[in-house]
Structure formats: C-alpha cells, structure tokens
C-alpha cells in the first residue's frame, strides 16, 4: 500500500499517524506539503488531526482551499481511499468530500478522553478487521466535533449504512444520532473525530485503533 499524509500549516497529528502507518505498513508513508500542486499516485491519502490554520474562520475552512486539496478530491473521485481524522474530517466536510459539518461541542469546551464507540459496519476498507459486536475505545481530543447534517442527509447516511462509528452511550460532543464517523457513497472516504493513531500502541493505553490501519493495509495492498 502506498500512503501519503498531507501536512497543513498547523497540523499536529501528522507524525502520530505516520508512526501508526509505518507500524502497519512496514514501510514509510510520504509526508506531502499542503502547498504542493501535484500528488503522486497513492492508495491512501490521510488528512491528519491538528489545528490547521489555527481553526481560524472555521475548522478546516481555509485548509480546504489549499492547492493540494484539488488533487485529493481528484484522488477520491478516482476511487482512491481517504482517511480523514479529526481536523481532517473537518477539512473533508469543508471540501465536500463528505456531507454535513462539524460544529462546536455542545458543552462549549474542548474534550480529551477515551470514548466508547460501536463499529456499525465492517463493510469498508477501514473496518474490515473489526468485530462489529465488540465496542471499542479510542481517544478524542477536539473542540468542534459536533456532527451536523439535515434530516434528509442523516436518513440517507443511515439507510445506506454509511455511519461507520457511533458513540456508544458516551457522546462527548452532542453529535446528531451519536455519529462519530461516516463514509462516502463509494465507501472509500472515511471521516471520524476520534484518533485511531493514538490507540495503536499498547503503551499508550489501548490498541483498538490498530485494526483500522491493518484493515487498510489488507484492503489496499
């Protein structure tokens, strides 16, 4: 599997996801600068977490206009896989790679803690290795993770089995329908607020995130 991690000014979790990918791939992902106008051929493009552009204006709003995003959109249109984590999910929504928007947490505060989630479907390249009967625990760390979409969109997401992760009685931000992560129509673009790269190392308190990287390596190699 060939993977690229896009680095925006203010991205913070790029190195973290690089480490998790390296561990599962057995090879180095490419770190690609947001200002580049071309993107090589990759199986997976990762939009990492962080505070790109300081979250100014709206989270991910300015990053969505970075030169590289045109290429990321083309990659997705060609059926390429995109993993959009936290700030990456925000960027993906602002770029219309995914529907809806991430708004301020209902509590009005930043929240950093492990959350319980259900894996709703193993029918994606991101979750094939998960057992949907077993809830998982992955850390969140965000100020604006409150997922919103209109009723019609939400119904469609549910109807098409595109809600991939759902907070399990443990909604940290007020997201509608307890949505923690969704996938695109072709199921190749995943956006989620929790950080799987922070749950891929036993020393850090949990490894429920590792299966995502392993699923991807298996599906895309």
């Amino acid at each position, binding site marked *: 599997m060939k993977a690229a991690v896009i680095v925006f000014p203010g991205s913070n979790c790029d190195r973290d996801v690089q480490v998790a990918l390296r561990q599962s791939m057995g090879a180095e992902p490419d770190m690609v600068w947001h200002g580049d106008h071309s993107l090589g051929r990759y199986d997976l493009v990762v939009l990492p977490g962080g505070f790109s552009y300081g979250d100014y204006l709206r989270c991910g709003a300015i990053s969505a*206009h970075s030169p590289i995003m045109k290429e990321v959109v083309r990659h997705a249109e060609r059926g390429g896989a995109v993993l959009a984590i936290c700030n990456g999910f925000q960027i993906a929504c602002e770029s219309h790679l995914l529907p*809806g*928007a991430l708004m*301020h947490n*209902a509590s*009005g505060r930043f929240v950093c803690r492990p959350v319980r989630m259900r894996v709703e479907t193993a029918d994606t390249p991101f979750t094939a290795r998960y057992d949907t009967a077993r809830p998982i625990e992955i850390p969140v760390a965000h100020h604006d993770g*409150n997922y919103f979409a209109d009723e019609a969109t939400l119904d469609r997401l549910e109807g098409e089995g595109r809600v991939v992760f759902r907070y399990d009685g443990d909604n940290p931000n*007020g997201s509608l329908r307890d949505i923690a992560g969704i996938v695109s129509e072709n199921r190749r673009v995943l956006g989620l607020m929790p950080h799987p790269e922070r749950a891929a190392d036993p020393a850090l308190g949990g490894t429920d995130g590792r299966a995502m990287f392993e699923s991807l390596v298996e599906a895309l190699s």
Partner: protein
Amino acid sequence: MQARIFVTLKNGVLDPQGKAVATALHSLGYEGVGAVRQGKMFEIDIAAADRESARAELGEMCERLLANTVIENYEIEIVD
C-alpha cells in the same frame, strides 16, 4: 469601500453557543431575554469600481469561504 458581512447559522441548526449565552444571561437576572443566536461579523476593506461589483465579489467570497453554506446564511452590507 467598507463592507460588513454577517454570517449566521441557518434555522434548524442547533446553536449551542447561543443557548449557553442565553442561559448565562438568565442566570445573571435578565429574565426578559428569549432566544439568542451567535454569529460572526466581518468588516472588510474592499477596492471596487462601485457598490454592485463590490456586492457581487463579496457574495462570491461568502459562497467560497466566509460562510459554510451547509449550515450558514450570509448577509452583505456596504457601509459606504
């Protein structure tokens, strides 16, 4: 030319910030306060031939960047 752009959440979109402000105002004793909505205001200096071309350009800016039209509305006011 000076313009003011107001960006507000669409009706039907929950506004937790506005709600928190309303609750805080009530607890400060302002019982007469009903709903509160919180939005953004941009004050922009713009060079343009006339008000109409300014308005058109500002509209584009709103559609492309200043507002997230999935959840927000915008209103343009040319100040002078």
